[in-house]
């Protein structure tokens, strides 16, 4: 079977890269654009309320000549002069197709009427499409308009703040960084991945993560499925929500060439606040550091010289994106061929991300009953500098030290203290790279889907979807001898190659029929199989003979026994077999019921098969006769309610098997890593394997039961529309790694289904046309507001908290457990401070309790810490305001996140070493205490700032209110029409300018000295030291590339 899948795949790949085929397609394009004598027909297509309809397909019957209407519903079509009767076909999904004989006319205006059968908008749901008015679950669509109006680098940016219930958190600030997407909170403690939503691209699960593989320009629409009644059809993978992505495909009509391009410059939005020479000197003289000034520093003091390391390092970055697509087709055959190039650099040298994409789609109608099609999506991306981070040196280097010597050469060791001089090299060395280092991730992905559809007998349809996916990634790292990264050390390199591939085969039977006009029945049945595989090979080696070899041949190195290479690898394969049935029934468009049942068999479990039921119902109140009286005010009203059960993929492949390993964890003061189990018999060294985990045969999925109640409404002829959803998701069987007693004979923990978790929340979405002036001026708004309350309910008997794992019963998973900072001990509090063994200028921590249950005059970790906050927002939301006047469009996107605590690692003295005020180095400029500056912000520069028994209380200096309101982007565009278009022979032209990340309206954290109110990641990534207080789900700010603001100029052209 494996061979067969590969064969199919091989053929598809051959197809996708075969140059002959591309040539043929291009030939078609050119042929069809050649024309003889022409007539021009223009006109406007309007809908039932006389609004212009964009995107209506117009086709000259029995030809490939066609077009689509522009944003205002206008069209212009060149048709050949002919004596034959010419008929134009106007079609749009959800509307009745109109045919109009041209008969020599040059202007034809058409009014399209909604198709009663498929009244209203069609939305994509799991394994099919559905009328929006029939939907009984909770889902939200990100409109193609919203996707189009702001140029984005990736899918996660496109989703950020766009949909209620969807939270997108970036992970890292370098170009090409990933993101953490959460729908309605988290429900698993076992791993971050276990909380990731399932992404479905053109019906096929998009495995292997990495949203950067998707070119956002190729996305037509995105649907986010949220509640169990919407996601239960994905059964064991539905609990974290589903993101359905539909890509653009060819439409019938004229061959179109469209070009979407933009170019932008990014600049540092806000520099880190640092000390200038004078301020640093003041801090250093106050501090206990008595290392003395370097001769260069004394010179600076005398001459008033000050070095701004940030200014010297930062440069302007750029972001650019070009997409060329050729598409078109006839009623029977549509195609599209597109290529894209994207590149983003940043303000630091050596960090960039670029992506090349090539995509071909084809849809073919064969006869009356058969339709087939494919989509091949190929991405090649390169990410540089993802793991280089010179920010610590940039921020902490002495502003008293010069960067260049008298001859203008970079001073190699510019540290302002003797200890660092030997091993701190100037970050300016990064600006040139003379075989100094390589930090590159090259990635190739080929994601292919094919389908075939057969109308067996009306209304029964069979469809097969086949997905073939191949992923390859090489992560190559090299650090040259005595380079910035290896001061006074030899070179080192490592290469990690990862390959992944998989297939999906889905067989579907779809039945759709309206019986006796009032009973609409839809049945979808599915049988699907999916298998996915990844493996990697890693090699690390130092002492390479020459730096220019880099990582390319690690054999060219010293290979003595003390310089052996480190080798490792891993392999994962999993499979899923599913059966699903969904029944939709609607009576008279008023009452709707959806029943879903799915059975999933997973390779990951010993007890493989589990069932997932869901039920939901809808009531179209607006269809009731009693609503007729107020129909001029209320134009839509629908109640929905649903219940269902789903799971998330918290069981990793092979987790139930139990295992033996040849690696043993070794921890001491210097090393924390796995070592191979070895033993020697005399000189003869042999490897050993031992039992590391007991088989977890009873391990099953975590099950989430969600109840959802929703209300869809529309007022004033749908000028105001919206949705409110309330949900309660109870997850049970949470997998927790129990520490077994040593006498069970296994060294590790044992994963078992034991815990419970809760997520409750409310989501509100609103769309409103605020102004619709006769002059053509319109102002409309999209608003979403939502909140989620996550709570860990139970883990095991007697379990209250596991501080190291960040688990606290009754609190969210992002809870922070720590001391509470009251301020700084002031001079007049000296006596009180002495009780705690402290002096004025040191951290004042709340004495919560003591061994006797009351405050004891001693701050210690056992009695004086509590849950002091969490990363959970009180509420969050986004507003997009759009203004249109004639050809102009203007919009801006506002995003607000209210409440919660952000952990600023950069402000935690011993996490980032930027505010430890030890004088030895400079750092972030903070308001520190001195006898003459009685602040409560930061303690006085001192060797000890904490109470004697609370050595980690420095962490309290990093907690800030995470609230912020931010303008994400401002966009201004102009769409050309009429004469201009025909002059340049274009079908549509839009030029626009965008400012991304223009400004922050409100942020207490920035007011206190932060550079960006949005976290740079989660957990302790990028921290030097963890005070033991940060759960891996907390929002954290690490020392990273500063926030940037981009100014973008772009054009959308269609010929």
């Amino acid at each position, binding site marked *: *079977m494996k061979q*067969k899948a590969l064969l199919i795949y091989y053929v598809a790949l051959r197809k996708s890269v075969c140059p002959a085929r591309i040539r043929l397609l291009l030939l078609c394009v050119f042929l069809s654009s050649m024309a003889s004598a022409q007539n021009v027909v223009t006109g406007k297509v309007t809908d039932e309320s006389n609004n212009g309809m964009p995107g209506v397909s117009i086709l000259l019957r029995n030809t490939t000549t066609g077009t689509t209407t522009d944003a205002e519903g206008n069209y212009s079509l060149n048709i050949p002069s002919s004596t034959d009767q010419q008929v134009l076909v106007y079609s749009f999904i959800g509307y009745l197709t109109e045919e109009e004989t041209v008969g020599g006319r040059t202007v034809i205006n058409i009014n399209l009427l909604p198709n009663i059968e498929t009244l209203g908008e069609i939305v994509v749901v799991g394994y099919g499409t559905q009328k929006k008015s029939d939907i009984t679950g909770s889902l939200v669509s990100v409109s193609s308009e919203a996707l189009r109006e702001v140029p984005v680098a990736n899918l996660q940016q496109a989703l950020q703040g766009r949909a209620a219930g969807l939270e997108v958190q970036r992970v890292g600030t370098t170009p090409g960084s990933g993101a953490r997407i959460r729908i309605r909170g988290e429900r698993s403690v076992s791993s971050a991945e276990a909380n990731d939503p399932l992404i479905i691209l053109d019906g096929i699960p998009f495995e292997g993560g990495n949203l950067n593989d998707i070119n956002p320009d190729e996305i037509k629409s995105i649907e986010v499925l949220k509640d169990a009644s919407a996601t239960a059809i994905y059964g064991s993978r539905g609990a974290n929500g589903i993101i359905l992505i539909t890509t653009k495909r060819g439409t019938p009509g004229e061959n179109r060439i469209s070009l979407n391009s933009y170019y932008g410059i990014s600049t540092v939005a806000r520099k880190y606040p640092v000390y200038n020479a004078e301020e640093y000197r003041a801090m250093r003289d106050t501090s206990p550091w008595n290392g003395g000034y370097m001769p260069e520093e004394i010179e600076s003091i005398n001459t008033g010289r000050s070095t701004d390391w940030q200014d010297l390092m930062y440069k302007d970055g750029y972001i650019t994106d070009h997409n060329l697509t050729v598409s078109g087709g006839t009623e029977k055959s549509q195609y599209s061929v597109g290529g894209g190039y994207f590149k983003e650099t940043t303000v630091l040298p050596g960090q960039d991300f670029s992506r090349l994409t090539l995509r071909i789609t084809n849809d073919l109608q*064969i*006869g009356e009953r*058969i339709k087939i099609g494919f989509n091949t999506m190929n991405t090649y991306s390169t990410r540089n500098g993802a793991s280089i981070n010179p920010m610590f040196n940039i921020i902490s280097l002495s502003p008293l030290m010069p960067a260049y010597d008298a001859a203008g050469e970079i001073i190699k060791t510019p540290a302002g203290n003797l200890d660092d001089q030997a091993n701190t090299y100037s970050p300016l060395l990064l600006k040139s790279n003379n075989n100094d280092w390589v930090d590159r991730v090259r990635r190739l992905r080929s994601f292919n889907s094919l389908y*075939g559809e*057969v109308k067996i007998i009306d209304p029964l349809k*069979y469809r097969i979807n*086949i997905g073939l996916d191949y992923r390859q990634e090489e992560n190559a790292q090299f650090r040259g001898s005595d380079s910035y990264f290896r001061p006074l050390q030899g070179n080192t390199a490592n290469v990690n190659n990862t390959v992944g591939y998989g297939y999906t*085969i889905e*067989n579907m039977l779809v039945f759709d029929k309206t019986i006796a006009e009032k009973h609409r029945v839809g049945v979808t049945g599915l049988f699907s*199989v999916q*298998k996915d595989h990844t*493996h990697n090979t890693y090699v690390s080696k130092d002492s390479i003979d020459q730096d220019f070899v880099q990582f390319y041949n690690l054999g060219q190195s010293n290979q003595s026994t003390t310089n052996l290479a480190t080798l490792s690898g891993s*392999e994962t*394969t999993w*499979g*899923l077999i599913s059966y699903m049935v969904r029944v939709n029934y609607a009576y008279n468009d008023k009452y709707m019921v959806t029943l879903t049942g799915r059975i999933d068999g*997973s*390779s*990951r479990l010993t007890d493989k098969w589990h069932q997932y039921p869901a039920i939901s119902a809808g009531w179209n109140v607006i269809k009731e006769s009693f609503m007729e009286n107020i129909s001029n005010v209320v134009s839509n009203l629908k109640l929905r309610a649903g219940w269902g059960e789903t799971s998330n993929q918290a069981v990793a492949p*092979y987790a139930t*098997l139990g*295992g*033996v*390993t*040849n690696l043993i964890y*070794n921890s*001491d*003061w*210097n*090393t924390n890593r796995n070592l*191979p189990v*070895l*033993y*020697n*018999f*005399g*000189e003869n*060294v*042999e*490897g*050993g*394997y*031992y*039992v590391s985990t*007991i*088989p*977890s045969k009873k391990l099953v999925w975590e099950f989430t039961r969600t109840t959802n109640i929703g209300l869809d409404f529309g007022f004033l002829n749908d000028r105001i529309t919206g949705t409110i959803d309330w949900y309660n998701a109870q997850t049970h069987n949470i997998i927790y790694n*129990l*520490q*077994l*007693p*040593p*006498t*069970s*004979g*296994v*060294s590790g923990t044992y994963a*078992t289904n034991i815990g419970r978790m809760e997520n409750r929340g409310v989501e509100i979405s609103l769309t409103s046309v605020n102004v619709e002036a006769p002059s053509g001026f319109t102002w409309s708004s999209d608003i979403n507001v939502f909140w989620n309350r996550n709570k860990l309910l139970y883990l095991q008997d007697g379990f209250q908290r596991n501080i190291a794992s960040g688990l606290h019963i009754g609190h969210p998973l992002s809870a922070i457990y720590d001391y509470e900072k009251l301020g700084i001990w002031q001079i007049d509090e000296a006596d009180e401070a002495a009780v705690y063994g402290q002096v004025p200028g040191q951290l004042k921590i709340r004495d919560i309790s003591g061994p006797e249950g009351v405050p004891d005059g001693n701050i210690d970790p056992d009695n004086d810490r509590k849950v002091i906050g969490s990363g959970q927002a009180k509420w969050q939301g986004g507003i997009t305001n759009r203004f249109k006047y004639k050809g102009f469009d203007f919009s801006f996107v506002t995003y607000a996140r209210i409440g919660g605590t952000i952990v600023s690692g950069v402000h935690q003295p011993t996490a980032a070493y930027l505010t430890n005020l030890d004088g030895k180095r400079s750092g972030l400029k903070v308001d520190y205490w001195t006898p003459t500056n009685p602040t409560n912000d930061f303690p006085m520069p001192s060797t000890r700032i904490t109470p004697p028994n609370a050595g980690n209380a420095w962490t309290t200096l990093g907690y800030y209110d995470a609230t912020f309101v931010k303008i994400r982007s401002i966009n201004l565009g102009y769409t050309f029409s009429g004469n201009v278009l025909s002059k340049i022979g274009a079908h549509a032209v839009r030029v626009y300018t965008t400012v991304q990340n223009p400004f922050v309206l409100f942020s207490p954290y920035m007011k206190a000295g932060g550079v960006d109110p949005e976290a740079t990641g989660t957990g302790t990534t990028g921290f030097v030291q963890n005070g033991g207080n940060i759960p891996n789900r907390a929002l954290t700010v690490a020392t990273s590339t500063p926030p940037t603001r981009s100014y973008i100029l772009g054009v959308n052209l269609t010929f």
Partner: protein
Amino acid sequence: MTIKKHLHMKSISKIFLICLTALLVPGCNDVLEEHPYTAFTTQYFESEEGLSSAVVAAYAGMRYNYGPVGALDITAFGTDEWSNGDQALNQDLNIYNVTTTDGSILTPWNRNYWHINLCNAVVDIAPDVEMAEGDKNVLLAEARYLRANYYFLLVSQFGAVPLDLGSGELKFNTEPTTEFYRLPVEELLVKNYQAMIDDLTFASENLPDQRPVAAFRLSKAAALHLLAKVYLHRGYSAAKEGNDFQNAYSFAKKLIDNKETYGVGLLNDYADINKEGNDYNKEIMYSVERLPLNNAANEIGSPGTDFANKANQSNNMYNCNYQQAVPATYYNADLRGKSLFTSRVLQYGRPLRRFAPTQWLFNTAFADKLNDSRFDNSLRMVWLADTWEEEGTAAYDTYVNHLAGMGLALGDTAIYLTKTDAIAESLKALTGTKKKHYLIVGPKDFYSASNATFQVYPSIKKFDAVKRANFNDASGRPFAVSKLSETYLLAAEAAMQTGQTDEAATLINVLKLRAAYRPGLSAEEITSRYDKIKVDASAINLDFILDERSRELCGEGLRWIDLAARGKLIERAARNPQAVNIKAFHVLRPIPQSQLDAISDPDKAKYQNSGY
């Protein structure tokens, strides 16, 4: 038209056929079966290589028990031999303030069960493995010896411990359990001893006669030795059976009488037994191995900082603070405030200063330091001036000058601990050209909890390890588990317990004669010295045996168990002035709190040893 339609129908059925195939093909259940490549399951043990690798890991696990800090702490502290050095880390064990959360007791508790389970796996899985029966029996015998030794170490510290880990007694546990199968304790202890005896009987019949010349794979000799020891210990325990001492005697005697068959023998010179570079000598039957300078083979991440895990720190734990600055009260003004060693040196290692000899060991056990060579060959009294710095460096010259300032040169005696105070006084009295420039410390000034003026004391030198990359590093030497000399002691003790005191004296006098030997001495001199230390049958009793064990084996990781197993701990710990808190219940260690916390039974107390 009809032809066209026909074609049409044909193509439809063709497509249908394809679809049907696609529908059926993945139906094969292979998709739902896991066949991991890199994630090994216990299936791996069902091959010869796999089974053998499990045995290797079981050997490697023994390293936790021989050499690391915790393993040394629980066998040395609180005994008549050893008290605290001046760095009183983990002194709770020494002063008998032992708590259920004590880290050192976790060394056997947290490490040994999963190795026992690994041995269980070998024993359970071996019958299904296709390999030569002979080779398989050797692997089985090795696994069963190791399982018995893991149990022996646990039982010696904690009393009865579970044989059932969740899947039945002595069965490979595949059931995650939070049960603790320790009750009833009395019954379990009987089973514990029987299991050890069964395993070791099997091992003593199936292991090869001899170990390889320069490697410590287990042999019949090692198995017979441990078998005799287990019988002996059971003879003292609540699980004792009538002929335990007799059995102990016969198995020990079998080994002694068939030395040549088993390829073992006593060395002529006691000094050679523990000498670095002579680790594979024929007197040692089984050592837990390490390789000099090979961190990977020794499973050490960082040899300078690894105080847990499997690092052999025996070379550092007994060292006194030879770097200490000489007190201002010292009689020789040239030395006051100065350190004789400005850097640590390979020979003397890292001064971890954990164990200092008790006065009893120095004065009583080794009362005769002349005729019995074992004192001089076990404890360091002299430190020669040396440096880690390389010749030609500025630091080297600085040290040479530093020595010259005290009237010393490299290689000179730097610190001299005298055997009597009289010697110290007479040396200090020398003046003029005869004046001694080195640091002289007599026994009354050796470090003790009540006298910390000088942080120096006689330090065990059996574990000296010069073949290391750095003076702070852990040792790359094997750590001896069983030596033929101890077999003689076990045999003698068993003989005594069965009333054969003559035989006991004969056996012990073999060791006494060897102790009298020093290279260069004439045969008459040796005989004369032997006459002064040899023992009469009338003097043989348990205390004498224990004293003799100290003289022969002191510092070798045996003492606490030796005393506790023989019911002599309370009485003999009184010779350790710091062990004042000791109570009767201290003959067993507490069941660790982490174990009790991890079990589901809320009534934890019933599993705990009494007194804790």
